[in-house]
């Protein structure tokens, strides 16, 4: 949901490349406002329902879950990379999963911990990059993060490594198109809908590029869907991928 790291952790692990100190500091400033539905993260709150809908459908399909079950992820472990202040981690916990949330910005994690306590949810929040995750997980989510990291290929390998053999990986990221540049940077950041300096358009990945990185990491992409905006219906999952897209991946058969 946000950037990846504050200061590079003292590690020789290749995942340390996912850390970009400038970006992490920027998100730290926003942490306190994360949970205000009208604050600077208003856009993320609005994106949450369609995103959660996509995740729920993918999980229902993958594990053959009951769509009417309120806690379908009971007994499963979930890892949210770039969890921000927990906008996705909390819903996953309510769905029954044992959740680990990782974010590079210390302030985000502090805000996330405080909010989870308020919500009465037990979530294991950690500061760091993907390397801070221990063991493997049934579900790994990584929303709006890969476009911020310095070495996407290494980062994607890290995500794949955090996944159980029969696990499910779900990512979302903006596409690198003229439309996304216009919407997210010129209009979005220009009009203050998205905080200035949030995105560097040149780092955006197209679905083909991200699929390529995932395949190189031993994954198989099973779905790519668009997250589009219409004035009448707001944000929705569709086949229009020009702005932003969501992607589901599983481990490729050996």
């Amino acid at each position, binding site marked *: 949901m946000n950037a990846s790291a504050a200061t590079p952790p003292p590690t020789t692990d290749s995942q340390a490349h996912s850390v970009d100190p400038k970006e992490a500091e920027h998100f730290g400033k926003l942490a306190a406002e994360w*949970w*205000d*539905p*009208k604050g600077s993260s208003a856009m993320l*709150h*609005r994106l*949450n*329902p369609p995103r*959660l*809908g996509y995740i*729920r459908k993918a999980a229902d399909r993958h594990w053959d879950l009951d*769509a*009417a*079950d*309120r806690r379908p992820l009971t007994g499963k472990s979930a890892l949210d990379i770039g969890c921000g202040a927990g906008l996705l981690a*909390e*819903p*996953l*916990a*309510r*769905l029954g999963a044992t959740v680990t949330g990782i974010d590079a910005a210390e302030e985000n994690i502090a805000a996330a911990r405080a909010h989870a306590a*308020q*919500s009465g949810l037990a979530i294991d929040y950690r500061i760091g990059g993907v390397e801070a995750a221990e063991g493997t997980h049934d579900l790994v989510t990584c929303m709006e993060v890969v476009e911020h990291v310095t070495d996407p290929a290494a980062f994607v390998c890290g995500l794949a490594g955090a996944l159980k053999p029969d696990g499910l990986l779900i990512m979302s990221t903006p596409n690198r198109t003229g439309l996304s540049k216009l919407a997210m940077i010129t209009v979005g950041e220009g009009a203050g809908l998205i905080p200035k300096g949030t995105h560097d358009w040149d780092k955006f990945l197209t679905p083909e590029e991200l699929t390529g990185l995932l395949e190189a990491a031993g994954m198989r992409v099973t779905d790519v869907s668009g997250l589009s905006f219409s004035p009448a219906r707001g944000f929705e999952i569709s086949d229009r991928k020009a702005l932003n897209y969501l992607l589901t991946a599983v481990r490729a058969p050996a």
Partner: protein
Amino acid sequence: MNQTDVIILGGGLVGQTLALALDLHGLSSAVVDRMPTKALLDSSYDGRVSAVASASWNMLNAIGLGEALEGKGCPIGSIRASDGLAPGRLDFESGEGEGPLGIMFENRLLRASLFGASQKAEHIALHMAKSAADVVREQEGVTVTLDDGTILKGSLLIGAEGRGSPTRETAGIRVARWSYRHHAIVATINHERSHGGIAYEIFYPAGPFALLPMLDDAGGHRSALVWTVHEKDGPAMMGLSERAFLAEAEKRMGGFLGNLALAGPRGSYPLGFHHAAKITGERLALVGDSAHGIHPIAGQGLNLGFRDVACLAQVLVEGVRLGMDAGDAELLKRYETWRSLDTLMVAMATDGLTRLFGIPGKTASRIRRFGMTAVDRIPPLKRRFVDEARGSSGKLPLLLQGVTV
């Protein structure tokens, strides 16, 4: 700790229906009402009747009340509207194989059935004969302290107290309102001839005189009378002897149902219109008359409340299945958007109807009759009225289609 998904203030027909609709999908409610259970179920408390539109009936069935209510309401086969007793009328009938336009139920029967179901429901905690002494809505959640010191915690507060909703007032939500300066005199009458399942709406300058079909009782054929009179005439109408009251009623009806007798006490209710500017706030949603009150001319008040319930229940159920907090601002936004247009359209239509039929004079009467004839002859327009009466216009929430979410 009494922690539930929602806290419903007001355990009337709409509040209880919402609690049951949520319970069916595993969402928990605390329902608070200042009435003691016994008084609420007392038959003399409320002699009113409601036309349950077929879409609303679908929902009552879906939430498991079908069995308790089956055969206890009188189906409306057609609605016959006329301008006074002048010739020319407009008949609305349900199409082949479509079922009735609506079903007439006594409110106390609906209330008793809903209450019985709520008492047995797994996820509903009833707090009767209690009122909310303190209500706090904040980003973290809702806390309600009852007058006996009980503390309730929830994700969302529902204002379902009706017309004068203190929850709405406290939230500072502005309300557009006006009085029609009319009273509805409500009574149940027995009559000599059968109503044949027809609801009669006879329009007079003072307002509609409606006869709504009810099931026969020991006194024979039966209808509910909803008689709109000027507010200055209200007390006099209530003070009339039974004989004089029935004689006045017969004059309005033209005697087509034969001899009349009162089957119960008369009641008088002031008529007004109110429409809340917003129906949501931070961790707050309004339903039913707390949000909007309309003229009973088309019998749509309770049905509008049921539509609120069906929409809100669907929004909340779908939301929690995504792991969202039931009080999430995004969910409330969806409820607000879904309901606002529909509510205003129905409110304006009934208000317009009242005003149209309230204009005295021959010219106005001719225009009305022309209008009725026109509606009668233009099938799509007529269809639209019938759909409105059935409650099946607009984008229907699943519960009104009779299916669970």
